[in-house]
């Protein structure tokens, strides 16, 4: 008879068998037996956050920068409800996350016990799946299934709710692998047929105005996918644009790269999307920030969509060729087939797409990311550009909060490797970047990790600086401080007659003193002339730093597609802030 383990021991044995090295969490009454067991497992390091949301975002940052699932451990009731934002964020951005939550003892469930809440009920719509474990003999199986669900297909968060009595009870432990695959019968997917590949290749060959539109699916498919993408793009000679989440899959400074597309994408990327005759979407989901007005989205193109999630296909935009597949698998098969049959494609195709490229050059001449620099105040775009120039040779990891600074970071920081860019895109969670940076630094202790932040966002999870100090994580919080919720202010300026309702923060803390009170270093830059020296100072400090970069308060983020407009009607800069229609104003 096998040795019986307590529920808490089973949890750790499962974590060990899943090769988990770090968990992010916060203790409380209903998870104490699991915390008690922690001391017996030296290979697993627990990172104590200051709030469960922080633990969740840290686990997300860890997952996105390392490719491994993030694990978080929280208590019942408020512990679980605080984790909801992070779980939803992970769900929207397809981040593999395993959340273990404590629950009140089985006999108290349903009695409105202290710190009881219906955790599986609350988290049902924001997880891929969740479980309430009522039988200790099912705990091991559930733990392993949870990891499998989180990491299989389109990744995402899962939650295991474990009542306190189950954590004490003794039960059997068994490591069962690949339970899901049998059951999913075909859900995981599915070899790409040669016929589909031939149609794909034929569409590539016929196209005169092609564009690759790539997204986070490439990052999630692993570093191999980025390599294969680079090969395919160079083999075809086609232009490529990327979504916010896809940045880094293709080098940001490559001449074939048109920059990010979408609401704050470049003029050339959005116009190329609008005018193309072939759109090859690999691992992106036609999000509303990308498509703009759906009826006028790229009206004259054939569209190919590669996605691992069948429900992403045809959800927002109808496509001509849909392939449900992991990106790496598809690209590998496609490249093999392509090379067999088209040895000299690039040479033969140059002429066909030359007109398209000259059109793209004309769009590029608009230099849509340009801004009017100043020698008196720091322009936020200038700050991001300087940060990029001074850190680009260091294999830097960037996280962000949400708002104008996030878009400026996406526009002006050029990534050339996957997994270096962690930002909350789908849910748009202000307060994501600081705890995410904590998680990234845990996964990459020797690397430079910077959170490009706004002062409003960063205050939402500022308490995690205390975590960074505790674990000696030298994260750098680079705040573009304009004293406004900048993106809110921008929309109020453009869409609400400059009624800046509640978007100014009248009583901000002194970030330098705040940094010092946390036991880290505070730096403030107020003028462009001191910026470089101060950024260098920040980089060279081997401690967490809060960098208060005082920037122009009124700067807006351009270019911009106003809501409800198609891709070819962008606002390029302040001189073009034309009247936006009433219909446009009601859209988010």
């Amino acid at each position: 008879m096998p040795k019986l383990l307590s529920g808490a021991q089973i949890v750790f044995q499962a974590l060990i068998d899943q090769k988990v090295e770090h968990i992010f969490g916060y203790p409380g009454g209903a998870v104490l037996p699991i915390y008690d067991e922690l001391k017996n497992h030296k290979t697993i390091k627990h990172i104590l956050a200051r709030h469960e949301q922080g633990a969740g975002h840290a686990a997300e940052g860890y997952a996105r920068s390392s490719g491994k699932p993030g694990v978080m451990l929280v208590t019942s009731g408020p512990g679980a409800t605080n984790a909801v934002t992070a779980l939803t964020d992970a769900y929207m951005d397809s981040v593999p996350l395993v959340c273990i939550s404590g629950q009140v003892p089985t006999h108290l469930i349903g009695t409105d016990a202290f710190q009881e809440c219906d955790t599986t009920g609350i988290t049902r719509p924001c997880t891929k799946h969740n479980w309430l474990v009522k039988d200790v003999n099912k705990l091991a199986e559930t733990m392993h299934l949870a990891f499998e669900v989180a990491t299989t297909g389109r990744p995402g968060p899962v939650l295991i709710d474990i009542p306190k009595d189950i954590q004490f009870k003794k039960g059997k432990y068994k490591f069962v692998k690949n339970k899901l695959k049998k059951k999913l019968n075909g859900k995981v997917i599915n070899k790409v047929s040669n016929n589909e590949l031939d149609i794909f290749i034929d569409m590539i060959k016929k196209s005169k105005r092609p564009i690759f539109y790539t997204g986070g699916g490439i990052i999630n498919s692993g570093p191999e996918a980025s390599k294969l993408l680079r090969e395919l793009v160079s083999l075809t000679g086609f232009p490529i644009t990327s979504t916010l989440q896809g940045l880094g899959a293709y080098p940001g400074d490559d001449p074939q790269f048109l920059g990010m597309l979408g609401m704050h994408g470049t003029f050339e990327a959005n116009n190329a999307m609008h005018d193309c005759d072939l759109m090859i979407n690999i691992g992106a989901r036609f999000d509303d920030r990308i498509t703009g007005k759906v009826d006028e989205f790229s009206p004259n193109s054939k569209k190919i969509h590669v996605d691992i999630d069948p429900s992403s296909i045809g959800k927002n935009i109808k496509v001509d060729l849909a392939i449900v597949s992991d990106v790496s698998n598809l690209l590998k098969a496609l490249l093999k087939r392509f090379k067999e049959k088209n040895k000299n494609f690039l040479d033969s195709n140059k002429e066909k797409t030359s007109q398209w490229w000259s059109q793209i050059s004309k769009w590029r001449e608009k230099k849509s990311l340009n801004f009017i620099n100043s020698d008196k105040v720091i322009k936020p775009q200038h700050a991001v550009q300087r940060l990029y120039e001074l850190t680009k040779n260091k294999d830097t990891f960037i996280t962000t909060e949400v708002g104008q600074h996030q878009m400026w970071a996406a526009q002006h920081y050029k990534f050339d490797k996957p997994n270096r860019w962690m930002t909350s895109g789908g849910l748009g969670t202000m307060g994501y970047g600081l705890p995410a940076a904590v998680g990234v630094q845990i996964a990459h202790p020797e690397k430079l990790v910077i959170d490009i932040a706004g002062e409003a966002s960063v205050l939402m999870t500022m308490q995690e600086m205390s975590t960074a100090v505790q674990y000696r994580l030298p994260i750098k919080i680079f705040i573009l401080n304009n004293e406004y919720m900048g993106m809110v202010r921008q929309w109020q300026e453009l869409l609400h007659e400059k009624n800046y309702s509640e978007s100014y923060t009248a009583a901000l803390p002194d970030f330098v003193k705040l940094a010092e009170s946390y036991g880290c270093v505070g730096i403030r830059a107020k003028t462009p002339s001191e910026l470089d020296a101060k950024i260098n100072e920040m980089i060279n400090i081997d401690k967490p730093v809060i960098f208060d970069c005082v920037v122009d308060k009124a700067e807006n983020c351009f270019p911009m597609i106003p809501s409800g407009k198609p891709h070819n009607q962008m606002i390029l800069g302040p001189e073009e802030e034309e009247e936006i229609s009433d219909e446009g104003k009601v859209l988010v």
Partner: protein
Amino acid sequence: MAKSKSAYSEPVKAGKIDHHIIVVWVDNEAGVLARVAGLFSGRGYNIESLAVAEVDKKKHISRITIVTTGSPEVIEQIKLQLKKLIPVHKVADFKRNDKEILFRELALFKVLGNSKKQEKAKKICKKFNPVFLERTKKSFVLQVTALRRDIDKLALDLKPLGLISTSRTGAVAMTRGAKTFS
């Protein structure tokens, strides 16, 4: 201020709205119905009726039959989203006017009335397998099996006879001939 509208992008012209019957085979585990129903409410899909019961005692498989309305795009999304749920094994979908499919709903009518009215009621329902589940001097309970619109009509026709309570199931469905849903 402009009037309030849907928050995300302008609504696209939807295709023709049709009635569909969606059949879902699921593991009969805690919360599975909430997952399916929550998917419908969370994504703004409509449930007209719902019938669910375990159909395989050994494997603990339940069969859920949902009547819904939607454009072809919405129906396609419903199916794809359902298939993503972990406890879901398979999903079948067909239009309500599909000739290859049999549908039935069951209804119980409680009517206050004497034996004369009872005979009258039975006559009204005669096409729909009427069965008296209970008869007293003053009241009776009549069971019928029929399509939704027929039951709607029967309820109207029984009203003047003294109908005081109606209980009905959601639709259940089965294929004709030797085939089963795949």
